[in-house]
């Protein structure tokens, strides 16, 4: 039986990363979808950047910001004596940044798909802005959001480059499945590589099929 620790670690990292991105992505997506302000499309572009940048470049940015001598990481290390570098929390940071654009883009599309008229009706019926969001926008965008969550989770599971830069490749501590496959192939351990590859591929196919189903249903309307 091959060692499946990397799989459990991957699930933990991807789930935490997705949960972390969700709140931030929803807030920014609502802002971009429902408010007009100068620089809106620029903000959208910056938030989408991790989708197209090489993961190693992203990893480098993360080190600049969160490393022991980084802008935020330096403060953390000096005042609290902790660092995200070479920890599983660092892997979470990397995975949440690479998967963020998928969640943000899906959320923006989902919010833009909610007719503004429903929100106006809610305002006239007595709702303040947060209540409109909570009672109307969010439930009507829920399917699109869920599809985005699943895509982001799949992307977070599969990250290699950014995770390697930030968290390293420490067996049992920061070695996620994608890194373990690389190590196994390098070491000629094809039974471990095959097991991990089959499980990861299967999981991703299931996620994509479910995402497509959700997307199709939300297009048909309820």
């Amino acid at each position: 039986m091959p060692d499946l620790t990397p799989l459990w670690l991957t699930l933990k990292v991807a789930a935490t990363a997705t949960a972390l991105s969700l709140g931030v992505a929803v807030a920014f997506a609502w802002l971009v979808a429902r408010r007009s302000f100068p620089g809106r499309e620029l903000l959208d572009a910056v938030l989408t950047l991790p989708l197209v940048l090489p993961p190693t470049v992203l990893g480098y940015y993360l080190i600049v910001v969160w490393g022991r001598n980084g802008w935020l990481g330096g403060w953390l290390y000096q005042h609290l004596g902790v660092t995200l570098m070479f920890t599983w929390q660092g892997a979470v940071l990397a995975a949440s940044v690479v998967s963020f654009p998928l969640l943000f883009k899906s959320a923006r599309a989902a919010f833009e798909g909610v007719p503004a008229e429903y929100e106006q009706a809610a305002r006239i019926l007595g709702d303040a802005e947060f209540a409109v969001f909570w009672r109307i926008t969010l439930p009507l965008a829920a399917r699109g959001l869920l599809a985005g969550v699943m895509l982001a989770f799949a992307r977070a599971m599969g990250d290699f480059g950014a995770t390697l830069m930030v968290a390293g490749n420490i067996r049992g501590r920061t070695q996620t499945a994608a890194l373990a496959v690389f190590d196994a192939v390098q070491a000629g351990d094809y039974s471990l590589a095959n097991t991990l590859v089959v499980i990861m591929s299967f999981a991703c196919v299931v996620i994509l099929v479910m995402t497509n189903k959700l997307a199709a249903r939300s297009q048909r309307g309820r």
Partner: protein
Amino acid sequence: MKLSVDIGKTLRSREREFHLRAAFSSSDDLTVIFGASGSGKSLTIQAIAGLVTPERGRITVEDRVLFDQEQGVNLPARHRQVGYLFQDYALFPHLTVRENIAYPMKKAWQWGIPPHFDQKVMEIMEAFEIASLAKNHPHELSGGQKQRVALARAMIKRPSLLLLDEPFSAMDAMLRQRMRLELLEIRKRFAVPLVVITHDPADVEVFGDTLVVFANGRVEEINGRRDPAAAEENRG
């Protein structure tokens, strides 16, 4: 009821500019705003409801100031006590008929409809003859049923004014006539003043104690207290 509107707003798009300059007042409990599409009548009632903010002017209902640019008054839509019937009703698709109607009675943090409002919701559903549809979702309803649900939802908090945006445009001729009569019935039963906007001359004949005619963003004509006999003559 006295509604008085005197507002200005400019909408700019890449192709054209639209200047709305609307001034009228009505003391009747049925005011018809008539005009072609694009004449600014929808924009005007959206301004009354607080959905768009005019650049200048003043809107009052009785003694309540809803908007006054000079005094810096701009009540949010939720505090205007105005009912609004959207052209395609805007029933919330994720809620049942009963949940739609109870929507204004429930706070965001409450899970269900508070029990002391149950009776009220039931009463208004019976008044609009839609009690049997309570558990249906909007997509299961016919056009006439949707309109009744939307009216019940708009009326449950007893607004001081009900605005209707092209209420019959989505209906066939038969239903249109029936719903016109129902609307007059509602005005009587709930004693609520109505402001109806329409581009259909037939609506003007049936309704309209005060008629406000819009063209190109301006009020062209105001007729107060039209003589019903004259309207009858026109029809023949």
